C-alpha cells in the first residue's frame, strides 16, 4: 500500500486505474490515456499532483540562501509572486532535482520539488540552509491540483472565491498569488495554459468535484507524461539526474551565469564543462519509420559514439513517435535508433514538439 493523496477515494470512485508512483498510489488514467491527452490539448483537464513536495523557506537570508542553492539566479525574481524554473546541483554540477521557486516575500520563498526525490532534496536543502539561518518548512497538508488546457482558465475562474478569482484572472504566465489558504499559480507541465493550485487538503475533494461538474476532465499521470514530452519538458530521473549536468540535458537556458560573482553550488564544475565544450547535446527526435521510441534505446550517429533516448513515446497530437535524447555533440539532422533489434530512421529537432495545441515540428 502506497501513500494516498486526499483525492485517493475520489479517483477510485471515478474509475481511475491506480499505480505506484514514487511510493504514492496515483491515477495513471480514468479509461483512456489518449483521450485525456487530447482533452488537455483541446479543452481542459485536471491532474492530482498532491504527491509533489511543497517546501517553504523562511528567514531574512532566504534570498541569499537561494542565490547559493540554485543554478538559476533567484534575483530574476523581483516582483512578488513571480516563479522561476531551476536546477539544484551538487558540487560536481550533477542535477539533484529540478524545481520551481516562487518569490512570496523577501523572507518567504516557496519551492515545489519532485516527490521521487523528496528525502534527498529535504536533506540537502536543510544541510545547506543551516549556514544561512533559514527555516525549511515542508507543507505536507497542502493538496495540489493542476488544471491545464485552452479552456482551463474559463472553467476554473468561476469556481474560485472572490479574492482568488480576481487575482487568478489577472495573473501573468509564470506568476502565483496566495489568498486565504489558497495559492494559485499560472504554471504547468503540459505546454498549455492553465493553473496549478495549492489548497488545504480538506478542501481538495469539494474543489475537484466542482471542476468535474464544470466540465474539467480528470486526467491521470499517464497523459501528463505524454503532454510534457510533446512540450519538450524534462522529466527528472529520466532526462537528467545527479550523474549529468544541465549543459547536456537541454537546460543550459536555466543556468544563471551572470553575474559572474554569484557562487552557486556546482558553478565551478559547470564552467569547466562549458569551457571544454560538452561532448554531448540534448535533442528531440521524430521517428520517421513505424514503431515507438522508448527510454534507453540506442541512438546511432555515423562516425560518433552512441547516444541514448532519455524519454520516448507516442505523441497523440502528432500521431507518430517522438523522444528526447542525449546524443554526441556532432550529431546532425538525422540519426538511427535501435528499436527491438531493427534500425529505424529519425529526424533530429529542437526539443519542443507541441505548444498551445499546435505542432512545432514539420511532419513528413
Amino acid at each position, binding site marked *: 500500500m502506497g501513500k494516498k493523496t486526499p483525492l485517493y477515494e475520489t479517483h477510485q470512485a471515478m474509475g481511475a486505474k491506480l499505480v505506484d508512483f514514487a511510493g504514492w498510489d496515483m491515477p495513471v488514467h480514468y479509461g483512456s490515456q489518449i483521450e485525456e491527452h487530447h482533452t488537455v490539448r483541446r479543452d481542459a483537464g485536471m491532474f492530482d499532483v498532491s504527491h509533489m513536495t511543497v517546501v517553504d523557506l523562511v528567514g531574512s537570508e532566504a534570498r541569499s540562501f537561494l542565490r547559493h542553492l540554485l543554478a538559476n539566479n533567484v534575483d530574476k525574481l523581483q516582483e512578488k509572486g513571480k516563479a522561476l524554473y531551476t536546477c539544484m546541483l551538487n558540487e560536481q554540477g550533477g542535477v539533484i532535482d529540478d524545481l520551481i521557486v516562487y518569490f512570496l516575500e523577501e523572507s518567504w520563498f516557496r519551492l515545489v520539488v519532485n516527490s521521487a526525490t523528496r528525502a534527498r532534496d529535504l536533506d540537502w536543502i536543510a544541510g545547506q540552509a543551516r549556514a544561512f539561518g533559514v527555516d525549511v518548512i515542508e507543507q505536507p497538508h497542502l493538496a495540489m491540483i493542476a488544471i491545464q488546457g485552452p479552456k482551463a482558465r474559463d472553467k476554473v475562474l468561476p469556481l474560485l472565491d472572490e479574492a482568488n478569482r480576481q487575482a487568478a484572472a489577472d495573473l501573468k504566465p509564470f506568476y502565483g498569488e496566495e489568498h486565504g489558504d489558497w495559492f494559485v499559480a499560472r504554471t504547468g507541465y503540459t505546454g498549455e495554459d492553465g493553473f496549478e493550485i495549492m489548497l488545504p487538503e480538506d478542501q481538495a475533494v469539494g474543489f475537484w468535484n466542482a471542476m468535474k461538474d464544470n466540465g474539467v476532465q480528470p486526467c491521470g499521470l499517464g497523459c501528463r507524461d505524454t503532454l510534457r514530452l510533446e512540450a519538450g519538458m524534462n522529466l527528472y530521473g529520466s532526462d537528467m539526474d545527479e550523474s549529468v549536468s544541465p549543459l547536456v540535458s537541454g537546460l543550459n537556458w536555466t543556468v544563471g551565469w551572470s553575474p559572474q560573482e554569484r557562487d552557486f553550488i556546482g558553478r565551478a564544475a559547470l564552467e569547466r564543462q562549458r569551457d571544454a565544450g560538452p561532448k554531448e547535446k540534448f535533442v528531440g527526435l521524430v521517428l520517421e519509420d*513505424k514503431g515507438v521510441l522508448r527510454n534507453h534505446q540506442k541512438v546511432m550517429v555515423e562516425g560518433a559514439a552512441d547516444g541514448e533516448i532519455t524519454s520516448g513515446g507516442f505523441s497523440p497530437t502528432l500521431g507518430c*513517435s517522438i523522444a528526447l535524447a542525449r546524443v554526441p555533440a556532432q550529431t546532425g539532422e538525422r540519426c538511427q535508433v535501435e528499436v527491438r533489434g531493427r534500425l529505424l530512421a529519425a529526424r533530429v529537432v529542437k526539443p519542443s514538439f507541441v505548444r498551445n495545441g499546435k505542432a512545432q515540428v514539420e511532419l513528413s
Partner: protein
Amino acid sequence: MSEMPGELRYSSNHEWARANDDGSVTIGITDHAQDQLGDLVYVEVPEQGHEVAADEACAVVESVKAASDVYAPIAGTVIAVNEALADKPEAVNQDAYGEGWLMKLKPSSSDALSGLMDADAYQEFVESE
C-alpha cells in the same frame, strides 16, 4: 470485469483463439490483456505465409506504456493478417474479440486448440495471477 466469450479458447500469455468453420483459427489478445496494456498505439503483425511455432513471439503490440510480444497460442501458417490495425491500433482496445483480431492461422494439427483453456479456466487463471 473483462469480457471472456465462451466460444473462444485462451492461452496463459493472454491470447485468444477462435476455431472458424473453414478450419482456420483467428488469433488476438484478450480483453484483459488490452486493459492491462492501456491504449495501443502500434501493432506489428507477421507476414502472410509465415510459419509460426506454438509460443513463438509472432506479433508486437505497443501501448502508451510499453511494447509487448504476442505469442502464437498454437502452431500454424499465417494465412491472413489484420492490415487495418496499422492505422487503427485502438481497435484492439475497443473490440479485442472482433475488429481487433490480429491474424488468422491454418493450424498444423487438427486438435491444436485442445491444449488451451476454456473461458472458465482462463477466468480462474486471470484471478490467480
